[in-house]
């Protein structure tokens, strides 16, 4: 292995193969190294991606224009109602505001928004610079709440105050401050789905499954959520946590403060989707619900086996590399690739936790490379070395894979097809096959005859 490309400080973030004692010692959940070209984002990013799918909320980004413009309509979270969240609002702080403080501008921006659009809820994101110049965003929001009788919720998300995971936490705090006043005593019923953002309509798939087995969904956090729907969340009897990285903190707070227990599930892959549905039915359902869950998952599994068998010969034995945001997704993907007869040779995450790596460690082969907070140089080196045929990642990884002549599947914001649930498995398999077996690859190697030039 070309050691030269890996910094000493980075070596603890990389583990080759599963360790025999069953305990993964990989370093994770810590700040990135300066100069290492991390693929990671910031606190604001974490907060924004969690809250943005609340469809009828106004998201005002308090800061210079960049933070708002880069997060304008990026998530691919679909809405069944309002499309408000797809606009970009900002205070567009300029030099004068930075010198004299941005509080007045923020208050004026809220005024302009309130007069123009009659909002129900406004989230105000405090970005890096607001943290430094010390605007009292809390006070401005509180004054606006009183003035207009609406919810104006500050989201403390200066980029430097931690990493993306910390932004998830700030978003969860904002959600708590939105829903806490709506908690009422009384019988609890149904479930909340936490940590699905309705990318390509995935939340709708999950809701349909739960409907199929007779489980009521109270609130979705935050995919396809609205002010009215999200404030009903305290009346649920169980929280289902899909994206553990972003939502475990909220689930814990809701358990402590509202008495709602939670279970972690994943809807990626046949195996995980099936066990998720059965576990949910077992947790809140009647024996009828459990029976329906089992019947449904069996029926869907066998439908899928038939539908997927045609890809067996195209994909069996291929090697996969995974570089995604959170650990839960990486884990599901390893299982899903195994079900497709493929081997995961490289697996990394941006924000995986020790317990995620523990599970990953148990799932992979002896020679698999495990990475936390990787950079493009490491990804390139390990993908080449391990002979990966496809990379699953996000927008920045796509051209890297293509340049290396490796197929690619987007499992992040830009996915156009749902990858969750049973139909998601079909979409995923089709995408993997389409990219690995594209006829374009055959033109990559240019035959050069002796005299030079193309062989015609």
């Amino acid at each position, binding site marked *: 292995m070309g050691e030269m490309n890996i910094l000493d400080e980075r070596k603890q973030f990389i583990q080759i193969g599963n360790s025999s004692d069953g305990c993964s010692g990989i370093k994770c959940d810590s700040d990135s190294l*300066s100069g290492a070209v991390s693929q990671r984002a910031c606190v604001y990013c974490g907060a924004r991606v969690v809250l943005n799918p609340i469809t009828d909320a106004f998201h005002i980004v308090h800061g210079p224009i960049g933070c708002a413009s880069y997060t304008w309509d990026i998530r691919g979270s679909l809405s069944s109602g309002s499309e408000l969240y797809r606009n970009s609002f900002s205070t567009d702080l300029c030099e004068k505001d930075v010198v004299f403080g941005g509080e007045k501008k923020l208050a004026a921006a809220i005024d302009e928004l309130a007069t123009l659009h009659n909002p129900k809820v406004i989230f105000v994101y405090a970005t890096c610079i607001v943290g430094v110049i010390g605007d009292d965003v809390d006070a401005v929001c509180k004054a606006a709440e009183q003035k207009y009788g609406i919810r104006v919720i500050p989201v403390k998300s200066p980029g430097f105050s931690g990493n993306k995971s910390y932004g998830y936490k700030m978003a969860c705090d904002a959600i708590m401050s939105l829903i806490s006043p709506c908690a009422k005593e009384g019988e609890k019923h149904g479930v909340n789905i936490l940590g699905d953002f309705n990318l390509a309509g995935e939340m709708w798939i999950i809701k349909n499954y739960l409907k199929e087995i007779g489980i009521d969904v109270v609130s979705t956090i935050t995919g396809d959520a609205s002010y009215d729907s999200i404030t009903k969340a305290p009346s649920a009897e169980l929280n289902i946590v899909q994206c553990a990285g972003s939502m475990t903190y909220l689930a814990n707070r809701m358990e402590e403060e509202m008495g709602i227990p939670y279970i972690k599930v994943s809807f990626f892959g046949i195996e995980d989707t099936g066990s998720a549905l059965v576990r949910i039915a077992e947790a809140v359902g009647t024996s009828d619900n459990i029976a329906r869950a089992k019947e449904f998952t069996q029926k869907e599994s066998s439908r899928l086996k038939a539908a997927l068998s045609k890809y067996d010969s195209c994909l069996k034995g291929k090697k996969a590399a995974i570089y995604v945001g959170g650990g839960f997704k990486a884990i599901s993907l390893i299982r899903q690739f195994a079900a497709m007869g493929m081997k995961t040779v490289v697996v990394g995450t941006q924000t995986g936790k020790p317990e995620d790596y523990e599970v990953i460690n148990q799932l992979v082969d002896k020679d698999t490379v495990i990475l936390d907070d990787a950079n493009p140089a490491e990804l390139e080196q390990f993908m080449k070395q391990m002979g990966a045929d496809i990379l699953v990642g996000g927008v920045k990884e796509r051209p890297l894979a293509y340049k290396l002549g490796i197929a690619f599947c987007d499992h992040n914001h830009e996915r156009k097809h749902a990858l969750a649930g049973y139909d998601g498995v079909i979409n995923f398999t089709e995408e993997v096959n389409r990219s690995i077996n594209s006829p374009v690859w055959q033109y990559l190697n240019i035959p050069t005859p002796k005299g030079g030039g193309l062989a015609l």
Partner: protein
Amino acid sequence: MLNLTPKKITPRTALRVNPCKTCQPVGAIYCALGVHRCMPHSHGSQGCVSYHRTFLTRHFKEPAIASTSSFTEGASVFGGGSNLKTGVKNVFDIYDPDMIAVHTTCLSETIGDDVGSYIMDIDLPDNKLVVHANTPSYVGSHVTGFYNMMCGFINYLSLNTKSPNGKIGIFPGFVNPADIREMKKLASMMKASFIMFPDQSGVMDAPMTGNYEMYPKGGTTKEEIISLGDCAKVLALGIFTSLEPANVLKRKCKVPYEALPLPIGIANTDQFIMELKKITQEEVPPALEEERGRLVDVMLDAHFYCYGKEVAVFGDPDTALGLTSFVLELGMIPKYVITGTPSDGFEKKAAELFDLFQVEGCMAKASADLFELHQLIKNEPVDLLLGTSYGKQIAKAENIPFVRAGFPVLDRYAHSYFPIVGYLGGLRLTELITCALMDQFDRECEDEDMDVVM
């Protein structure tokens, strides 16, 4: 979102809705990517550079590499000096560029990091360089960041050695790699010996080889940037983008310059060619005259469909003005010309174009946003929308044919491989504009008006 925009226009002073610009650092990165074997480095917290790389990747569908100082809370309290020192060392150790181009962010600017003196304190490996530019996000836009980074390179590197190199410096402005290729082609046809700076061609449109080259073949070399100081003259294309670096070079190295509009459309391209001719004293070659003739021919063929059609143009100041000039040449009426970038003189330049073609009822505005443009269109509609991808919602809401040009175009492929500058760029724009209008007609017309021949 499509129904958010009310028709009634009320003044806003604080709330920006749907911006028509973004912040300085992304422009600084794009500029630095146009320098050979240079690593752009963002001095601030990590999210900025992650967004910038994503944004550039989405536009070019190419890897956009840049490192970061990865500020944490400590750095933002005690200053980012040690982060920069570690960052620079790490970047040279693992990524081995020839040069690192540091740009600041709103965070490092506000805490008052003196990047220039940090750099002086760093022990650099032999033959390696670090340059920097101040690019606070709360000033200007991505265009400002682009030219500030150009100024940074010039300030650090360009030298007047008193031995003239006889070359022309060409500053291409904030354009796509294909535009730069086209400018280079035109300059070569005019037999000019030139230095293109910056030059993202071959970097942000590198060919597929099966290898990932962190530093592809393209880009202005360090030697060329140094040598800018010995150039006979600089052609600064796009006054809002290239004037400032031209001024900096003039002050530092006494190189005279001519500031021209981006060569979009016939008149602007003619002006570029004539300036080249003035310098090289070469005749315009027949091949180039033929190219121009082909463009005029096609514009004539298409004029019936374009003449008198009203169009809204938006984007970066120089791009928007170039496009405005070209649609006027096609006989269209640029009813609204909008840029989000704060620019003194933008409105005046646009008004000069309106006067030149004697069109009435047109308005131009800098520091505007797309919400405002949408409101204007709701009150008085246009026949065509011409600008970046962010216009697509307006186009859909109001059912207006839409042509994408400028930065960013996030929702189409291959656009950055075709120029909009030069005569060839004019051909492409004519095709795009005419086809968009015709497609709309075909989609909407009565059956009896539908004709295979148009």
